[in-house]
């Protein structure tokens, strides 16, 4: 009665990892994607920290790497720079089309079946269990049954919502991003992050190098201050000298949940991973590494569940393992986000001026107490900031 052991909906990096890991356990896996071409259209800044390779025991293929990154540069509204140049700041700006396709090929090599241009519209239910998916594959009605369904359908998160899980993105707890891929500008061996309430309220603007003289130039802002494209234009205007010869060769955009990941990561025999589960870093908005990590855990758990005939409750191990690994970090990063988004540009300038590169490393490491102590003098002259910053010490 089952067509597959595991169906993974969405072939981004998270879905591809889930499909690969489940297949490696010996499960019969189907990976479907709505799009005709994996990885396109790109809707991402394309930055990826190198640490994930070791963590998940894989290598980003050379042909998918557009630029090698050694550092992260953060700019305050007044232009003061703080730089992170450590082993933690090493990474890549990748070509998502090539990278995503590589990961899907890996899943296929591990034994997963792949279907592109296959849209899943709904879940098939029997009682409280989800027994399969219904949709459309290359123009034909599509229906398939499975023991486990993994929802990896990105920021739209329709599969989880069809299952009755609250994964709706709100205007307040999401960033909406738009970026131009530009050619004809100076770039460094660093990703550049710009804070400003003028061109990136409750978010930031970025320049991620894509090549010798090209970069993804974008902004992510909340949904309450205006459409992202307005702010991207403001950012480019604010740094017009830098962009004076730059030409736009592509436009990319998307939604970035910046909140706690959803509570219901597993419901019955359905698992939710990646952006669909809001597994996105609430500070930098990066989702690829976390999605791959979640996919890897969920895929292994699902594969083991079906091949070793475990009880349904075994699937909860995905949530348990994820919580153990990531909950504390998320809570810490969310506190920092709460603080950052309450600051006006004068506050940000004062803080950027008071901190140095070593302090930035401490912030990244979550050692907030040491950094806050260093800000005592600023806080004395800015009583309104005390309450905001005190969140970090709770």
């Amino acid at each position: 009665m089952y067509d597959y052991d595991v169906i993974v909906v969405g072939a981004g990096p998270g879905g591809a990892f889930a499909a690969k890991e489940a297949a490696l356990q010996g499960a019969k896996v189907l990976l479907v994607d709505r799009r005709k071409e994996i990885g396109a259209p790109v809707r991402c800044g394309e930055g990826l920290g190198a640490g994930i390779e070791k963590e998940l025991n894989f290598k980003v293929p050379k042909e998918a790497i557009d630029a090698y990154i050694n550092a992260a540069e953060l700019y305050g509204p007044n232009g003061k720079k703080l730089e992170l140049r450590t082993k933690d700041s090493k990474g890549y700006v990748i070509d998502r089309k090539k990278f995503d396709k590589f990961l899907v090929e890996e899943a296929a090599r591990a034994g997963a079946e792949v279907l592109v241009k296959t849209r899943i519209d709904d879940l098939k239910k029997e009682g409280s269990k989800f027994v399969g998916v219904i949709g459309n594959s290359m123009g034909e009605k599509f229906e398939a049954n499975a023991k486990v369904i993994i929802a990896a359908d990105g920021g739209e998160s329709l599969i989880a919502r069809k299952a009755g899980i609250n994964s709706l993105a709100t205007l307040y707890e999401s960033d909406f991003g738009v970026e131009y891929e530009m050619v004809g500008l100076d770039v460094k061996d660093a990703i550049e992050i710009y804070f400003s309430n003028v061109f990136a309220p409750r978010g930031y603007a970025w320049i991620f190098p894509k090549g010798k003289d090209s970069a993804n130039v974008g902004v992510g802002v909340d949904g309450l201050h205006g459409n992202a494209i307005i702010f991207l234009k403001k950012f480019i205007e604010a740094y017009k000298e830098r962009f004076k010869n730059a030409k736009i060769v592509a436009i990319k955009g998307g939604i970035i949940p910046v909140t706690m990941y959803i509570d219901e990561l597993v419901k019955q025999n359905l698992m939710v991973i990646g952006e669909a589960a809001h597994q996105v870093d609430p500070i930098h908005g990066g989702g690829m590494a976390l999605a791959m990590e979640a996919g890897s855990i969920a895929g292994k758990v699902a594969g083991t569940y079906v091949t070793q005939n475990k009880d349904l409750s075994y699937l909860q191990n995905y949530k348990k393992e994820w919580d153990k690994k990531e909950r504390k970090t998320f809570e810490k990063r969310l506190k920092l986000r709460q603080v950052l988004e309450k600051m006006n540009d004068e506050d940000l300038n004062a803080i950027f001026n008071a901190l140095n590169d070593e302090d930035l490393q401490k912030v990244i490491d979550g050692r907030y107490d040491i950094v806050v102590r260093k800000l005592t003098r600023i806080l004395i002259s800015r009583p309104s900031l005390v309450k905001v910053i005190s969140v970090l010490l709770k």
Partner: protein
Amino acid sequence: MVVEVDRDKCIYCGACVGVCPKMAIVLEENVIKIDATKCVDCLICTKACPMNAIKKKEK
């Protein structure tokens, strides 16, 4: 339904799908479809759209 998608501006990123509280928006290959029977005119999608491609219809 009071909203409409400007297909000349849309980049098919799906942000509107993620914020629609009624699951009234579907992203197909290069088409955004809004189901008028589900839409409740909340206008959230008009605010979320990074490209400012969803607008309230002019009367």
